[in-house]
């Protein structure tokens, strides 16, 4: 469903990505792991159109999207969350979700200012769908609170909810478990699995939390210094000696041992 072909990207003298090809199958949860600075976020930014690659192509359902601006890529059905939570902090929880649905409406400045009937109808529809979505992701009780006031774990979930509100077919999650405690991370894992199983949304997950990655991913790609060094199922990756060396140093054990060693 999503393919990147031979992507090269450098910032000044630093080569962030070398010849990176990625193949995400429809309905998969694909994890992208690697040490800090391996180029994981850069790759997500290229897919979502924030950066342009120096060389290479990005195909979404067979269509070239590499030259499109970020909002057009979002409208094609690729939504995302950010490493540093980018919620609309001055708005309530439900308003954040409601913004996610605006791009699909026909409302504009004039029709809103003159309160055309179709605008009111769309608004009621958005309100109803947003309430449903909030219940679905388990944030119904936070509906009218300012988004910046809720705990970080719920902010991460809300960001996923807001991405879902755009009606995506593919969702990119950039370190959604960063800063979460064990209970919050488990809840996050359940939400991610739920949106794949029930909503049939393909997921690309950049994450450092190995317990989470190993428990929910169907397939994992490992990046190191901007290059793909391994690809496979969680089981294959855990046994891959090259990955263990690159990722954790020689003596470390990748299976759940990451937190204990660091």
């Amino acid at each position, binding site marked *: 469903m999503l393919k990147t072909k031979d992507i090269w990207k450098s910032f000044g003298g630093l080569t962030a990505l070398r010849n990176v090809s990625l193949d995400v199958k429809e309905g998969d949860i694909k994890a992208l792991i690697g040490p800090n600075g391996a180029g994981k976020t850069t790759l997500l930014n290229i897919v979502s159109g924030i950066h342009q690659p120096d060389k290479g192509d990005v195909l979404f359902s067979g269509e070239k999207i590499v030259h499109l601006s970020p909002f057009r890529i979002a409208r094609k059905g690729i*939504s995302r969350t950010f490493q540093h939570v*980018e919620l609309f902090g001055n708005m309530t929880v439900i308003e954040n979700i409601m*913004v996610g649905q605006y791009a699909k409406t026909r*409302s504009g*400045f004039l029709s809103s200012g003159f309160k055309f009937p179709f605008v009111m109808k769309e608004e009621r529809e958005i309100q109803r769908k947003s309430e449903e979505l909030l219940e679905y992701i388990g944030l119904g009780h936070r509906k009218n609170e300012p988004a910046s006031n809720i705990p970080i774990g719920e902010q991460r979930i809300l960001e996923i909810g807001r991405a879902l509100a*755009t009606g995506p077919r593919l969702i990119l999650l950039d370190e959604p478990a960063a800063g979460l405690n064990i209970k919050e991370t488990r809840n996050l894992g359940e939400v991610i699995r739920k949106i794949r199983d029930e909503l049939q949304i393909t997921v690309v997950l950049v994450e450092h939390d190995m317990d989470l990655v190993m428990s929910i991913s169907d397939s994992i790609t490992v990046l190191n210094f901007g290059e793909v060094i391994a690809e496979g199922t969680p089981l294959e990756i855990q046994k891959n000696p090259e990955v263990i060396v690159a990722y954790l140093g020689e003596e470390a054990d990748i299976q759940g041992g990451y937190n204990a060693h660091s």
Partner: protein
Amino acid sequence: MKKGDLYSFLFFVLLIILLPVISGSTYTITVGIFSGINAMVAIGLCILMGYAGQVSLGQAGFYGIGAYISSILSVHAGFPIVISMICAMIVAAMAAMILAVPALRLKGHYLAVATLGFGEIIYIILNEWGPGGPSGFGDIPHFSLLGYTINSTTGYFYLIWGLVAAVMLFSINLINSGTGRALRAVHDSDLACDAMGLNVTALKIKVFILSAVYASLAGSLYAHYVTFISPSSFSLFYSILVLMMVIVGGITNLWGAVIGAVVITVLPELLRKFEELDVLVYGLILTLSLMFFRKGLVPILIEKIKKMRESAVAKD
């Protein structure tokens, strides 16, 4: 419309209707007219800055375009006033678009300086090429529609505040709609807006155009009311004055723009009795209000009312 907005709006309309009846003095009504003209410009800037988070120090430019284009078309080309005013709004909208496309790539101070530059360019053009140059020109016809000309002060008061009410109604609807929500989202994070599929550039350009059209309408009304215009009314000083209105009233609330416009317009009139010290007192009041009412008059008033209600509930 939300309940609070509806009551405020009805009260506002009642106030407009009653003011000229209660106060018979032409002087008071004249000050009221200028407050209304300024309020229209301030509402536009409030949506642009307070909601969409884009700075402009060039509103005087659009205000000047409104005044000059409408006057020139009605004096020299003999256009009916309403047509001249609409043409002026279209010109202002196009100017806003031409300015917005490059300027909205900028943020914060840079955007402020770019819009300030635009205002200055318009000011210089009016001085150099405007009819009458720096001394301006007069004999601009009064506002008329379908053969009916308005030339009484009370007539202008109702015309202008009627249009302020219309602009206000349109703006409240806009702000409370999904489009308004999208504008507030642009204020918070461009990055997240992109991920939501919102066309941030288009939204910014449109809100810029809206504020320019409001300012242009106000400028045209000013010209046809005063019947004489010169570039000095459309200098940087006016842009800053409007900014002051929005900030004193409360940038996060549309009613703040209206209240701020009235306060800033009326204040110098009230300070006349201080004679040559009036500028000093004016400056002092503004400085103190910015120090102690940083959020602006209207948001602070709303907070006070909420607190009073809560304590009343607590007593029961």
